[in-house]
């Protein structure tokens, strides 16, 4: 991981004394060099729920985290930490008192993003050649590809999640939660999903779930176990 991470903290800093009536908007930029080795240590507590491979499960109660862009993971963790994103069970685990400071956050996402992905990720019900698949491709291309990429690869820089390789029951549940306003998300993304009905979302996500993940990103077999956990 050669990238660096920037954390932007902007807000109003209230100053006292003579400047009390002229609060200025301030921006703090912090920069971290990720250390995946420390990330492995931090990940220990995550693995107690996400399992050592971070592959998620087939019914979509847990997402596949392995192979996700580090920037996406970081953004999600920050949103879970602050409560912007509802996740009552996980929130206490990503507080400073449990997880540590920003360096640990950066390290753990760097570690997770480099884990090989579950090759047996769950695909939607309509395979290539069915009318539903074709309809899904049209919807995906027209409404989603601009941000999530033509292959569902996401966008590391823009912190747009990689959908390719994510379990279909998970993306389906999340997209519907965003549509129903049960999960807050990027405003543009929210606007797009609100234009489509739930079945159209299913079709689009079915399509992206059928796309192939580059072999180099996948674990060799579904029986692969994370050697870091001996």
């Amino acid at each position, binding site marked *: 991981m050669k990238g660096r991470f920037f954390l932007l903290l902007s807000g109003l800093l209230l100053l006292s004394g003579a400047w009390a009536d002229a609060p200025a908007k301030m921006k703090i930029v912090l920069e971290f060099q990720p250390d995946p080795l420390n990330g492995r240590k931090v990940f*220990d507590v995550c693995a*107690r729920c996400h399992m050592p491979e971070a592959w998620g499960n087939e019914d979509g*109660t847990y997402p596949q985290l392995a192979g996700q862009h580090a920037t996406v993971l970081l953004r999600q963790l920050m949103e879970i930490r602050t409560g912007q994103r509802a996740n009552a*069970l996980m929130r*206490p*685990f990503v507080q400073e008192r449990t997880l540590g400071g920003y360096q640990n956050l950066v390290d753990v996402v760097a570690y997770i993003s480099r884990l090989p992905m579950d090759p047996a990720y769950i695909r939607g019900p309509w395979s290539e050649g069915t009318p539903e698949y074709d309809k899904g491709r049209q919807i995906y291309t027209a409404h989603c590809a601009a941000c999530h990429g033509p292959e569902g690869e996401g966008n590391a820089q823009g912190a747009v999640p990689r959908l390719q390789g994510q379990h279909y029951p998970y993306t389906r549940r999340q997209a519907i939660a965003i549509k129903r306003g049960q999960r807050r998300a990027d405003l543009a993304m929210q606007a797009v999903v609100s234009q489509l009905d739930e079945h159209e979302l299913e079709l689009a996500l079915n399509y992206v779930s059928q796309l192939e993940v580059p072999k180099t990103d996948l674990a060799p077999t579904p029986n692969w176990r994370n050697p870091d956990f001996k």
Partner: protein
Amino acid sequence: MSDQAGFSRRRFLQASGLLAASAPALAAESVRPEASGKGEGGVPPAFARLLRKADLPAPRGARVVVVGAGWSGLSMAKYLKLQNPDFDVVLVDRQASFTSLPLSNPWLVGEISMDFLCHSFFDAARNHGYLFLQATVLGLDREARRVFTDAGVIGYDYLVLAPGIDYDYERIGVEDPVEQQLLAQRYPGGFVNASELLTIRRKIQQFRGGTFLLTVPDGDYRCSAAPYERACTMAAWFKHNGLPAKILLLDMNNEIKIMKDGFARAFSELYGDYIEYLPSSLISSVDVAGRTVSTEFDDYRFDDAVIYPPIRGARMLEEAGIMNPHSPEKTANTDPFRYHVIGDERVYVTGDSRSQPFSRGGHTANSEARYVAEVIAGHALGREVAWRSPQTMCFSAIDIRPMRAISLITFYRYDEVKKDFAFDRTHAVEQWDEVGGRASVAWAEGLFQDMFYE
């Protein structure tokens, strides 16, 4: 069970059964007290209260009554409302407030505070948009879809029974109900309610030395790890306080049931001088006055004890006539995938009184509820919901000051050949550390947050 007036619960249930036959449309109507007043049928006035409608606002949608506000009932009520905001959900519990059993072992030895374990049903109900009613459920009339409680009758469209467990003292040879009461109060197991916990804490604090006996029941008892955890935390307390105490851990199983490596190592590495572990100790009788527990081969005298007997599905299920007589833990006769009573898709059984062999835990109950709530909401709309596995997570404190813990997560799958559920992937962390200690607190905090506050 008989009270002073000579009225047995059975007779009351019969009375309410009779009532069911004579007034089938009662669900929405109250029974006029005078109709069941004294003289007629011999029901004393005090009982009139039992037969009138409970003081609840008229339902504003399909009414779902959830019995038991433990980990399962609280999660059910919340997720039912989330799945279908039009459901009118009423959560009923005989207790006034919630005390967590998970994390109670660290509390017994001063690692966390009671505040952390206690929560208000009112907060849970307000934050999640349902009603809470403090009442004891006495019986069901499934024909007319009514629940009888000591606060009156409640009609339902769907009923979820999550009453947890009762102790099954008969399985350790204590059959006389009076003896059972005595044993339950003198040497409480600490796996059902807060009074037990308070008594056990006092016992530990006042113990000055000698033999402290603990038991691990056989069968699918509540929380496989917790009896071993309790042995460790108590041993840690004795060790840190330099007490000449010996914990005699009588295990009715032939080996440690869960996280065997971790617990076995803790017993030998940390507590070799404090814990004597005796597997395959099938308890056949308990002499309360003589402070002796007996197995087929030996008698064990103790100075003090916490006796956790085998468990069974709450007696309520048996009294309601929905128990499966062949189930060793006397659980309800329900569909293993959809959780409803066989032949009655209006009544569901969840949590530790479920019939499936999932490990009996609060986390299991919470994850299960997310699915069962969807099943019930789906039933109302005629929609099928695919089965998904609950997950069991358990944390066990091994040492204190600071708290160091081990943990386990497991999922289940259905084995088509054996026609039963089996463990699927499991991840255990059996080396105790402070990360685990902090994680156990974070885990409970997250679940409390989920069940009570958001």
